[in-house]
Structure formats: structure tokens, C-alpha cells
């Protein structure tokens, strides 16, 4: 629940770097692979936008799970 609130706040202030980190944290604790990949995708997009160093490992995770190229 706390993560949801933080995500909403980061969206409200259009803080892409924070969104990358928050979604990545959500992905790391998600219960299913589909949920992990959904949240990793969200994190990856905001990492791309903000040039966040997380982008590389998020992309690698998605490719490894055949969710990205």
C-alpha cells in the first residue's frame, strides 16, 4: 500500500527517476512472473526516460524472460 502511495505521488510530480525505482521495487517483490514483468516494464520505461542506470538491468531481465528484444 505504501508503495502505491509513493507511485501515485511520483506520477503526480512527473518524477521519472523515482518512478523507475519504485516500479523496480514493486517488480522485485511481485508474486508472479507476469506481475514482475509488467512492473519491470513500467520501471524500464521511466528509466529510459530519465536515463536511469536501472534501465540496463531491467531490460536484461525482460529479455531473459522473453518479454523484450
Amino acid at each position, binding site marked *: 500500500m505504501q508503495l502505491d502511495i509513493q507511485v501515485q505521488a511520483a506520477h503526480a510530480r512527473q518524477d521519472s527517476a523515482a518512478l523507475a525505482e519504485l516500479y523496480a521495487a514493486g517488480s522485485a517483490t511481485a508474486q508472479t512472473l507476469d506481475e514482475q514483468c509488467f512492473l519491470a516494464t513500467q520501471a524500464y520505461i521511466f528509466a*529510459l526516460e530519465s536515463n536511469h542506470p536501472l534501465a540496463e538491468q531491467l531490460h536484461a531481465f525482460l529479455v531473459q524472460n522473453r518479454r523484450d528484444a
Partner: protein
Amino acid sequence: MEPFSDLEAVQNPVARARGLANAHYTDLSVYEVEKHALLFRQWAGLGVAADIPQIGDAKPVDFLDVPLVMIRDRSNRVRVFQNICRHRGMILIDAPKKIEGAIRCPYHSWCYATDGRLISTPHVGGPGINTHEDIDRDALGLIEVASYIWRDIIWVNLSGTAPAFEIAMAEPMERWSEFDQPLFHGGADSRFELALNTNWKLAVENYCESYHLPWVHPGLNSYSRLEDHYNIQSAGCYSGQGTTVYRQLTGNRAEKFPDFKNLSSKWNQAAEYLAIYPNVLLGTHRDHAFAVIIAPLGPEKSIEHVHLYYATDATEPTLRAQNTAQWKSVLEEDIFVVEGMQRGRHGPGFDGGRFSPAMDAPTHCFHAWVAKTLTEAQNEPAQHSPASAFAPAP
């Protein structure tokens, strides 16, 4: 629309020529034809590189209703793209900004690199699945517009059909080759805009000639007289005027702007003012230069974006502000003229007017270019169809 009936008379020698008919200044359908023939198919001025000085800087510009964005990419190259996502046609960037990493579409977050490549398509194959066999990212990059930087101006050829810039603009580039050296934009105090209730062509036509100087610019004429000016014209490319008595601006402590380097002695007292067809007005002097980019906003509205440049990045602010004020005053003196001619184009008895054979040759040169270009376009109707223009390669 019906073929133009006035173009032959416009292309007569200056002594016998008529000017363009009223419809070229007032009629929306003519404006649309001219938009394609005279602007989209040429190398037109869009903006200045000084607007996007740092890597990642992006500035959206609507040019004749086409949404474009100027971007300085990761390799420090200025590029111009259509400002639309290849997914749903959403506007990508709606205000000047710094692209820190990728350009993210605000709708479904498709992401593009600053060089235009489509690099991510989130959830395109379903939630958490970012690829789909039918979505070829390599074929869905941003639609790039041909562009070229000369004298800091970002020139664009929207149709992609013009000759290479260096070929199309070989003559003015050669004419001012001595000034082919770094230009430093004066910054925030060296730019301004003038909104004009006039067709864009009248701003070009007025700029071309010195005939009006004694009447409209008496201050300028007090030291640079009409007889000190000469006409400049090159059919199909540019025209303008020069003076042989340029006098440098001098501050209260006798300070002056530093000169551009290694100029020939001609430029000690000379200055030249060129209208580069279609929509860019340039001026150069030993110690500064300026550029006016005319953005047409409709048949009877335009805006002039004015930028002043210097030979170094360390000019004196007070003198710079004085120079900006001086040029602003001169260009403002022209407003009643271009707006008055525009109102005059609603007089049904006006037949396009006549030209002074001695004084109006540069203006007629522009009219003749317009007439010739429109004549050629009329003979190639399929090539300037709005529907087919600017489409990406299949």
C-alpha cells in the same frame, strides 16, 4: 483550383512586369498551394540552433501547421522530426525541454532515442510483453525531416525533394564565404519577435529593396543614403541590398563589437542584407549579423523571429542591448508598410502593381521566383499533394 492567370506577366522583365495578384496575399486556397510549392518543397528557415544549445535539448515548432520538433541528439547533431508518435499520432513534446534519456510518448509510452529510433513499445504484445511479431520497431522510428544548419539557422525541406542544401544555397554561401566562421548568438537580450498582420511574402518583398529607406527609415538614411546602396539579385535563390557606408555602433566609452576574423577590406564599410527564398532574411556586417525567420501563420498573418549574432561569446551587454534596440526599431518601422500593403491587397482594382526598373529589381526577383515556382508546381500536381507529402518510406 484554377491555374493562376497572372504568373506570365509577373515573369516579364522588371520594366514591364506586374506584381503578384491580390489572391496571392488574401486567398486561403492560394495560400495552401503556395505553402506546398514555396515553403514545403524548398529549404525554409524553421528555427535556430541556439534554441537547442545542449545535448538533449528539444523544442517543438509548428511550421505551417505541421508539428515538428528540433532536437540536439546524443552525438550533438541537430535533427528535426515530425513531432508525432508512430503509434497513435500523439504529439510527443508539447513544450521546450531537456531529454534526459529517451523521448517517451505521454499516451502509451512508446519511447524513442534522440536520433529518432523507436526503442521501446511497452505492453505492445499484452501486459508485460513488449514485443509483437507485427510491430517492427526498425520501421517505426520518428519521421525525420531533411535539415541543415547554415548561419545557425535550422533549414528544413519538408517534402524531401529539394536539391542538397549546399547545392540549392551555393550562391549565397559563396557570396558570404568570408563569414563562414563561428557565430555567437547574443542570448536572451538578442532575440525578439514581431507579430505582423500581413502575408509572409510582403515581409520578404519589403526587405529586399532599399528604395523605401529615405521614407520609412529616415534615421538609417541619415548616414547610409539611398545612393550608397546597391541591388543584389540571383534568380531563383535570393535577392537583397547592400550598402557601402556601414557605420559601427559605438558605446559611451567608445567601445565597439569585435570584428569577424580575416575579412577583406570591402567589409570595413560594407554591409549586406539578403532575403534567402523563401522565408529567411539575413544581414551581415563586420561586427555582427542578424537573422529573421518569417513564420507564416495564414494568408494574412506572420511572425518574425529575430536573432542577433556576434563574432565572440563575450560581447558587452549594454552595447548588445543597444544594438538589439536599434534593429528592433528599424524592423518596427517596416510594420505599417507591410500591413498597409496587406490591407491594400483587398482593393479589387489593384492589378499587382508595377516595379521601378531601377530600384525594385530585387523585389521583382522574388516575385519572379514565386511565379516560376508556382508555374512549375502547377505542371506537377501530383507531387505536391498534401496527402502524399512527408510520408515515411513504406
